[in-house]
């Protein structure tokens, strides 16, 4: 039990924390990897329906969201550099900008999903049941994959909010920033997954 300060200091090992984060990121990639596998199998089975399905998504909204996420990856990287250079204020600003980008992403997603729901297109709806099977699977995958990704965005946001408060209270500083680094790593992962989802769902047709 680490009840003395000396003890906790001794246990601190930034390399270990980073290795842990990388391993966790592997598991996340594999989680989505399973989905990509299912996607490619059904795409091979119903190429035509998947083609039609992708035409019904708005490439514009998808592209905007891609840019938003790429931009947020940049800002979180800047937050890290700022912290390393001991610029607390800039680091905090950059984390806040990243969080704002995340919110923009989610708002876009909300409208995108909302439009689909408006047309009666959502899992379990009467319309879905009438669709051709491949078409139905395409939209099932669309909702499942983007939904799971959005959930990861939210997890990432929670992580970054924790980081933000720790920076504010000087628990993260220029000599101890591994949590910020890990938060940034996770955020890059969330971004990376979207980089796969965007072409798979919106572009390939």
């Amino acid at each position, binding site marked *: *039990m*680490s*009840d003395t300060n000396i003890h906790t200091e001794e*246990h601190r*090992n930034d*390399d*270990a*924390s980073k*290795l*842990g984060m990388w*391993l*966790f990121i*592997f*598991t*996340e990639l*594999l*989680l*989505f*990897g*399973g*989905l990509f*596998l*299912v996607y490619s*199998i059904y795409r091979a*089975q*119903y190429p035509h329906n998947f083609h039609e399905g992708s035409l019904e998504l708005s490439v514009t909204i998808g592209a905007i969201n891609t840019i938003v996420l790429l931009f947020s990856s940049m800002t979180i990287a800047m937050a890290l550099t700022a912290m390393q250079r001991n610029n607390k204020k800039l680091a905090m600003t950059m984390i806040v900008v990243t969080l704002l980008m995340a919110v923009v992403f989610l708002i876009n997603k909300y409208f995108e999903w909302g439009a689909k729901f408006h047309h009666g297109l959502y*899992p*379990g709806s009467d319309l*879905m*049941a009438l669709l051709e*099977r*491949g078409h*139905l*699977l395409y939209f*099932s995958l669309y*909702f*499942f994959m983007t939904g*799971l990704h959005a959930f990861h965005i939210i997890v990432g946001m929670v992580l970054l909010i924790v980081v933000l408060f720790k920076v504010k209270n000087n628990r993260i500083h220029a000599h101890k920033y591994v949590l910020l680094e890990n938060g940034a790593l996770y955020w890059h992962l969330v971004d990376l997954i979207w980089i796969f989802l965007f072409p798979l769902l919106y572009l390939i047709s």
Partner: protein
Amino acid sequence: MMHNTVDKIEYVSFLEHKGRFKGLFSWIFATDHKRIALLYLYAIGTFFFVGAILGLLMRLELIAPGETIMKPQTYNGIFTVHGIIMIFMVVIPGLSAVFGNFFLPILIGAKDVAFPKLNLFSWWVFIFGSVLAIASQFMKNGPPDTGWTFYAPYSTATGTNVITATTAAFVLGFSSILTGLNFLVTIHQMRAPGMKFFNMPLFPWAIYATAWIQLLATPIIGITLLMLIAERLFGIGFFNPDLGGDPILFQHLFWIYSHPAVYVMILPAMGVITEIIPTFCQRRVYGYKAIALSSVAIAGVGFLVWGHHMYTSGMSNQARWFFSLLTFVVAVPSAIKVFNWISTMYKGSIDLKPPFLYAVSFIFLFIIGGTTGLLLGSIATNVQVHDTAFVVAHFHYIIFGGMGFAFFAAIHYWLPKMYGKMYNFKRANIAWAIIFVGFNLLYFPQFILGFQGMPRRYFDYLPQFQTGEVISTIGGIILVSGFIFMVYNLVMGVRKGEPAPANPWNGSTLEWQIPSPPPTENFDEVPVIKKNPYDYI
């Protein structure tokens, strides 16, 4: 280098250590890896007992043809819960969470795992998942009846509590990932100075290979279960042929995880046996590198054989012979280990103490389980015995005869270290004999019944199977009594036994060079490793 003086040094053991919390809280909020290991031990021991009682209930139902003590649907529920408890709550976490947690850091000369708080968190996640699994029994729609495999499309259609049970499996998987991650980082980052990878004892090697499997395979079952849940909640249709989905795909995804998962069960068991045999033969382990690397080989090839569970489900012929071939390949590293264990005993001064008895019976049962596994791995015989009692016998020999006996071996080996108390050898030997006889009576007849065509997961059978079924049920009763006797002996040992010395078996690995029970920080000073772990002579 034995430090026999170590006993006399004054110190506070981890059992008595006073931390931030008192009483029960000093346990359930402990971040000490040794306390967490004991938390797992108590939880898993309890679940094992519940699971065994459920198994016994099934055996009682099968004592005579027709309805004996329960309705068919109850039987379906019981074999499902029995499977879920035994697989997800007992054997998958089992050895690595209990003995891995306790001894991995000590064996590599570390003071704790890399992330002690995460370790505690994993335990809580494990308990949460277990509570969910048990809750699925008692909720409104009745216990899940899909079998622990949750095969679609039935699992997407049945009215029972499948969502709760699959959520439980998902949560338990998450705990397993976190434990594996923690151990991987521990092994990479926390080894004592001088402890190179090839200086590590072989139990840490086994844990290392296991942790990789936990990390790489578990996400696949995670996403599969999520898809199944989404399918049930929203009628999404990934696995439902009515909606264009493919139930065989579910089987593939399920076994891509679940075959590697059997290695999550068996690799740490092999690791334990590899620690015990050199100690009780007082001989350097034969073929250290072969054993270490065969663990890694098993972990690697084990990812490519899942199709052998699906020969009869609809697969191309090419896929079938390919999976069959790889199944035979993956048997090779396991056989290497068996040869190494036996060669280690050759010309050793063998000491038949209880841990060694369990270890030797592990080898015996594992050989039976393993060779019948090859029968199942070859396509022609598989088609004959698929989904019969033969399979039930095979996997009980592997997971109970293998992992279960290794667990019993480990607890008899390390209990003096964990609690600083010794149990009664005579009673331990008697319990071992009862368990061993009961086990074989219980499961061996199932091989024969299966060959004769007795299907698995049936609550009823034709009269011609009765002799075998009755023998089997008697074996079950003997086994459970032996188990109770064994636990009684161990509990008495912990409560009233003689104090155990630091090194009761004259072992050579690091855990025997610190006091029993270990101090909270394990080592007063960081040990520096200059030799191989198994230098006896």
